[in-house]
């Protein structure tokens, strides 16, 4: 009983941290047009984790290496060769997914239903450890320090990326930092939410927040992401559903709620304007 309670609390803390971290990261990635690339990074991490089963290497490290390589390949082809980022990202995404499947298929005595593979693909509450919580905390602090340290440059990029570039802001530096932090976050969170679903935590919170507010989006993204994670863990615990999928569904619901609230507010705004006429 004590073990279960501890496990549940650890899962709650991890989901809160993971959701908040992804919510904030997702906001910046979205504003800088890096969300598609981030989708690719998530699937490259999945491929890395799958290869870790095949070669018995540390899953987090292999996932991180794969995601970093994928991000750098896409960025190199975009900046140096001039291929559209979206096109290379989607090619790398399909390649990563295929590699992940092949790695799992070729793994000795491992099938899709085995515990190790399902941990990587769909996530598990058992993957949460105090060490991972510590890593997530450190990563969250690093993100906050980075944002506060480069506030003016980041603001200039968020305001108008082309203008900032024309004025000499180093866009590649900031893209690289954000992608490295994202790759790290995904590699750590991978076993909690699963490789296929981690992207839901990066995209849905900011998609919901954008419907509701133009102000303080990174902060709101973090809050919505954190709440999605928390509710996901609670629902998963109560109904005994897969944790990764449940968190992804909760995160998707935040978008539905965001769209609904913004539609209702818009309805009342228009009604008020009609009265003013």
């Amino acid at each position, binding site marked *: 009983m004590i073990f279960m309670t501890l496990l549940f609390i650890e899962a709650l803390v991890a989901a809160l941290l993971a959701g908040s971290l992804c919510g904030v990261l997702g906001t910046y990635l979205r504003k800088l047009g890096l969300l598609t690339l981030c989708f690719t990074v998530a699937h490259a991490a999945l491929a890395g984790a799958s290869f870790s089963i095949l070669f018995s290497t540390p899953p987090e490290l292999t996932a991180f290496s794969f995601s970093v390589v994928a991000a750098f390949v896409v960025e190199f082809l975009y900046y140096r060769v*001039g291929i559209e980022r979206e096109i290379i990202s989607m090619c790398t995404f399909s390649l990563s997914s295929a590699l992940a499947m092949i790695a799992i298929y070729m793994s000795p005595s491992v099938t899709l239903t085995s515990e190790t593979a399902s941990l990587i693909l769909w996530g598990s509450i058992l993957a949460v450890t105090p060490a991972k919580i510590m890593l997530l905390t450190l990563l969250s602090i690093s993100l906050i320090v980075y944002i506060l340290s480069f506030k003016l440059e980041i*603001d*200039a990029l968020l*305001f108008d990326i082309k*203008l*900032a570039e*024309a*004025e000499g*802001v180093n866009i590649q530096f900031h893209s690289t930092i954000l992608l490295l932090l994202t790759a790290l976050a995904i590699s750590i969170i991978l076993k909690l939410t699963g490789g296929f679903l981690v992207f839901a935590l990066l995209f849905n919170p900011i998609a919901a927040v954008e419907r509701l507010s133009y102000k303080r989006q990174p902060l709101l993204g973090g809050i919505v992401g954190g709440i999605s994670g928390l509710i996901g863990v609670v629902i998963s615990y109560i109904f005994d559903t897969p944790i990764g999928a449940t968190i992804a569904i909760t995160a998707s619901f935040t978008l539905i709620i965001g769209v609904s609230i913004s539609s209702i507010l818009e309805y009342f705004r228009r009604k008020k304007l009609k009265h003013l006429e």
Partner: protein
Amino acid sequence: MRRLENVRGETGEIPDRTVNGENGDRIAVLLRNVTTAYPRSKDPALKNISISIEYGSLTLVTGPNGAGKTTLLELILGFLRPLKGMVRVLGFDMPKYARKVRLMSSYLMQDFMKPPNETYTVRQVVSMGFAPFKGPIRPLSKRERERVEWAIKIVGLEGLEEKPIGILSGGQQQRAFLARVIVRQPKLILLDEPFSSLDREGRLETSKLINDIRKRLNSTVIVVSHDISPIINYVDKIIEMENGHVVRCK
């Protein structure tokens, strides 16, 4: 007029610069037989053009749509590579030293208008001009904050510092961007269609403002505009472009 008097009336705030470049060059922008094209484009956007623009001058680049005016600015800032020929800006070969040149330049983009939901205030937007010069954990110094206020005052946006830029009119937004241009005290100022969202009076006023800023900062100014009438009295050189060629330079 009050705005213009502000520019003239300023004393001691901004250091005067020599009109020549650091190594005594007189030419700020030099293009020699340059041909360039956008990626994956079949036709060159600029064809075999040669231009020289002196330090401290005000140059007007004009011509019909698709003439290559904005392309010329993008080439000068190193966003495009020359397929043939040589581009040298402020003494640096481009696009090799693009970042160095960009740090010494300011650019007013053609489509600068921000939507009403843009929440950054005028003061924040103007302060962003300092962004590339600030390393990690270095807030704006007292002198830089004073310069932000100075720039806002010059363009006549006093009292609107804390207003979100999105709710300002086109003309006011443009002045905010002009403040961001001058706050950096650039050696080279590139203005792409700066009169596009202004009425007749606003155009004349902005032209005077551009000329006064140029004189005050000793900057080299290149203005791209369809409409030559507001600024014609102040320009040192007019470059007419058509279909990627320079058809007249006087």
